[in-house]
């Protein structure tokens, strides 16, 4: 989906701030949100791609509002509600009760854990399919506009680059995030010239990005 998460090339975010004495977690709640976020995938019977998609599904104001671990907390809640581990509204109701506002807590979850087959742990898979592309090939990043989860930033779509490496095959996030099936595909690193992406006045640099085979088409 095209959303707030796809930040590459956006203007208006200002300068990068470096905190010299940064702690891993700035506040205690961030550590606990991280830990529950990490565990939420297993508890909800989902996966890493579904978790990333949950981040993207948050309203843009919620995506930004409580920072990185605020996103993790909200995404953990979303997956746990989707999968019927906790009822919708349960976190809000419990939070209100903790604040001393007596409210009824929902008890019946409505969701259900997804049913789908995984063929291994993690995301990498060994596959027999022949590589459609080779190092040195000129390829175009397809101009896809998928409404669900995918991993191709808008800023490369439609542009032509050069394959510079083949990487291990991996499950296609577009499929696993939606519990359809494991569509393991070859993955390639593709190099783009900055001037092709950002115009002739752009800073000179090379952009390398990893693309799944179905994101790419040959350029004759």
């Amino acid at each position: 989906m095209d959303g707030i998460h796809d930040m590459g090339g956006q203007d208006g975010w200002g300068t990068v701030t470096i905190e010299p004495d940064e702690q891993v977690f700035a506040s205690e709640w961030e550590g606990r949100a991280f830990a529950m976020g990490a565990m939420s995938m297993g508890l909800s019977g989902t996966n890493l791609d579904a978790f990333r998609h949950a981040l993207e599904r948050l309203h843009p104001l919620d995506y930004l509002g409580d920072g990185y671990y605020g996103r993790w907390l909200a995404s953990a809640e979303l997956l746990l509600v989707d999968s019927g581990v906790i009822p919708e509204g349960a976190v809000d109701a419990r939070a209100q009760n903790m604040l001393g506002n007596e409210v009824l807590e929902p008890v019946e979850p409505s969701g259900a854990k997804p049913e789908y087959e995984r063929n291994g742990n993690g995301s990498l898979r060994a596959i027999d399919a022949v590589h459609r592309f080779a190092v040195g090939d000129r390829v175009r990043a397809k101009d896809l506009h998928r409404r669900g989860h995918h991993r191709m930033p808008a800023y490369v779509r439609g542009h032509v680059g050069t394959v510079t490496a083949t990487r291990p095959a991996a499950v296609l996030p577009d499929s696993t995030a939606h519990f359809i099936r494991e569509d393991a595909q070859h993955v390639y690193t593709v190099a783009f010239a900055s001037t092709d992406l950002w115009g002739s006045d752009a800073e000179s640099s090379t952009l390398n990005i990893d693309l799944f085979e179905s994101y790419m088409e040959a350029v004759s």
Partner: protein
Amino acid sequence: MTAQPHSGGRASAPIRTEALEALLTEKGLVNAGALDGLINRFVNDVGPMNGARVVARAWVDADFRERLLDDGTAAVGEFGFSGPQGEHIVVVPNDDKQHNVVVCTLCSCYPWPLLGLPPDWYKDPAYRSRIVREPRLVLSEMGLDLEDDINITVWDSSAENR
């Protein structure tokens, strides 16, 4: 999967965190010790010191450096560094002609086993948005001024390679 409405008016993130932990604890799905264990691992045991050990070894051991550049996953595995967000490690060298810089524009993917959890600047929308478009300027603002004749390659880690 449906997009979510804006959750205006909700309790603060710290309270909602406490609420979620209470709900999951009551169901027997998490316990404080398990959460503490995961938190402690990333606060105390895993962090940039892991990656620093790998780089220092490459400085003094030419054979290791070659293995590291040839198969990063196996080479860092010699240190026992593996696990989530480290399934496939690619190592690229900087020299006086080439500088590499890594970003995840779509979320904030990071090589956890080697560097721990990402620092704030790596997750900062300013970094995620700008480093792919004007890396020389952003690096300069961050305190690294590169000579004009050094090529910059930006790696957007959009799949599972780190």
